[in-house]
């Protein structure tokens, strides 16, 4: 028991460690929150696989921007990623409508080709860069504190990576709040959206743009594949707890804190990559929600069926 407590406190023993790890935790929290908020709409629009495709498809854009500008500053990388992501989505749509290919084959073909292109581009220039292809796959959030420090008006104010992610996180939160009604109605009922005069296609593109932004901001920390985990885990977990979309969105905040802290602890004790540990923490939370959650949990469902049957029998009599 004492060992366990020791292991828990290990990352927080010295002051330097606390500062270091706080930055990582904060970064992880912002990544999970952004991904989770976007993920709520991705899941509810049944776009999970499209989200997977787009998060792979942005790779050639990121790599090209990196090779051209020779830096990973967020501006050009985001533009490259958006272009690649939208190109990926547009190709899928074109293949689906103009060729005999069905939707799933169009998706699979497009995103794997884009991804392969990205890897090849990266490998061709790998000698000249410090980028490691594996970095795209699971990121290195542990290096967050190494990011260049910023100073605003002479005061130390965090580092560049945190600020970048902070801006993205804020943008995501604001977009979701401001455009909530649009996202809600277009996700639930497109024909009502049309009735209300909402520009359905623009909203879809807007969501995919937001997705690309979040992927770009997060890939350095968690890699492109675990972005999907961060997008899907919060909404599917909270869907078992709440039955209204606003509550599910708000639940992303406590969940993101848990993923980040628990992920860090797990990574420290088992020497796992932090990003993958965060995903594992997410699964650890998902399981009880799925089994015991009040809103459709597996075990609560069977209980509900029994009570509903008995009440129906009563009313019949």
């Amino acid at each position: 028991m004492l060992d366990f407590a020791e292991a828990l406190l290990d990352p927080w023993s010295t002051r330097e460690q606390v500062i270091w790890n706080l930055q990582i935790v904060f970064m992880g929290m912002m990544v999970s929150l952004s991904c989770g908020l976007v993920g709520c709409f991705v899941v509810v629009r049944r776009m999970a696989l499209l989200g997977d495709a787009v998060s792979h498809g942005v790779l050639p854009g990121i790599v090209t921007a990196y090779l051209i500008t020779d830096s990973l500053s967020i501006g050009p990388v985001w533009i490259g990623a958006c272009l690649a992501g939208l190109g990926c989505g547009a190709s899928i749509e074109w293949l689906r409508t103009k060729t005999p290919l069905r939707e799933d084959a169009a998706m699979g073909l497009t995103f794997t080709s884009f991804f392969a292109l990205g890897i090849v581009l990266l490998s061709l220039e790998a000698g000249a860069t410090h980028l490691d292809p594996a970095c795209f796959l699971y990121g290195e959030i542990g290096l967050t504190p190494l990011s260049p420090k910023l100073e605003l008006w002479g005061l130390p104010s965090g580092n560049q990576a945190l600020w970048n992610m902070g801006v993205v996180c804020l943008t995501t939160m604001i977009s979701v709040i401001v455009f909530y009604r649009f996202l809600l109605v277009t996700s639930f009922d497109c024909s009502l959206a049309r009735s209300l005069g909402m520009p359905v296609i623009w909203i879809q593109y807007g969501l995919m743009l937001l997705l690309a932004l979040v992927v770009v901001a997060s890939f350095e920390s968690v890699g492109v594949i675990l972005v999907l985990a961060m997008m899907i885990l919060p909404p599917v977990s909270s869907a078992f707890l709440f039955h209204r979309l606003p509550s599910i969105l708000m639940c992303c905040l406590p969940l993101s804190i848990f993923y980040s802290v628990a992920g860090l602890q797990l990574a420290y004790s088992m020497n796992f990559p932090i990003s993958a540990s965060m995903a594992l923490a997410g699964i650890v939370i998902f399981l009880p929600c799925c089994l015991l959650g009040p809103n459709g949990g597996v075990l609560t469902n069977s209980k509900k069926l029994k009570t509903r049957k008995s009440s129906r029998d009563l009313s019949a009599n």
Partner: protein
Amino acid sequence: MFLPIWKKLKYMLLILVLSKEASVLKAAQISSESDKDWINQAIRFWTFTDPSIQIIALGAILIGINCGLMGGYVVSRRLSMFGDTLSHAVLPGIAVGFMFSQSKNEAVLMIGATLSGFLGVGIISLLKRHTKMKEDSAMGLVLSGFYALGICLITYLQQSPNGGASGLESYLFGSLVGLSDRDLVPLCFCLSLIIICFILLNKELLLSGFDPSFARSVGLPVDILQFCIWILMAFCIVSSLQVIGVVLVSALLIIPAATAGLLTYRMSQILVYSGILGALSGIVGCFLSFMGERLPAGPVIVLCSTLLFLAVLFFSPARGILPSWFRTRRRGQRIRFENTLKACYQVLESRSFSSQSFPQTALAQRRGKSDAEIEKEIGVLIREGYATRQEFPTEQKSELPSETMVSLTPSGWEIASRMIRNHRLWELYLTKEASYAPDHVHDDAEKIEHIIGEKTVRQIERILDNPQRDPHGKPIPSQDDIDRGWLSPPLVADK
């Protein structure tokens, strides 16, 4: 694939023997060539004398064939994204297999990977059946969750004493280096398994994929067949992992089969083409990866298959985009001269077929076009042999020095009268059978007259009981009229 049973067995035996031959090849190091001459490298590759080259080439070809064949059923049964999920879900199994065997023992790794894949598939099914979760969310969850677990385990193992040399991370993108003849064994085994299953279960797989409810109703164990497909997919993925890598192996399951689907509709042909395309992607990708030292094999092979797909999409003579575009243009030209011929008929009709030729100016009037345009159109007709033209000196009182008279040749007449018949027959069908108002039918008939086939014409003539006149009272040319080559006086009198 409708071969008699003994022939099927003969082919299976042949395949098994060949697989044994392949596994006898010795492993060899790919010697580091200080010779950077491209041509020499290329020659060295394509002559296949170097045993190490033989192995990697054979490996790439086998993977291409395996994934291509498998892909035929993956794409047609819409399992493409499922393949992607499965290929990520095997990662923890590889790590666990390594932990058990403490070495890169292929069999253990393969078994571990397959079991892990099945666990993932099982979890997806459970989630779908017992919760409100949708299939795509379940797949995304398993995909990323298992992947995360796999990454964790692999990182953990890399730090253990003998894990450092595990090369497990090469499973992410694949590599050709270090491929030995032992690695070819699972590939050959997988290939034999796939071919045997596909030959034996050909009809069953086809039916259960195309119409599962009907298949169930005739007693086919649809779920078991689906399970078989999953098992084969898992074997295929696991045996190809080392060369292609986890992330991209699903690409090979999709792209060659999708390309084959552009070339043909028949399943047996799709499988054959898909296998060939896969092998082609494999060998070319292998060659390119061999030439560029830093290029991992997986992505290059995938890009080759994508290029093949794009080539077929754009250039395939039957359904490619460019040939279709040319065909549409030619069709447009055909429609134009068919319309011209139709107008010729109408001009002749307006003159009660009193003479075989008519003035070019009358045609210009009828078509509502300028003389220059008509000049061109008639030129086309003459060139194709549908009309002839002659200059006739006019009467004294006419302003023009001479008048151009046009007359139709027999083949021109045939097309003209056929168009008119189609047009008027269709107008009659629309008014009689499809509740169209008579003033609404012209535009539709203008489009239909060019594409309606002879068989449909017979059908309509039967439905309408060999009609004589269209809704506007104009006579419909019969088949006799068309064959006769020219209207003879009795015909004119009848109408």
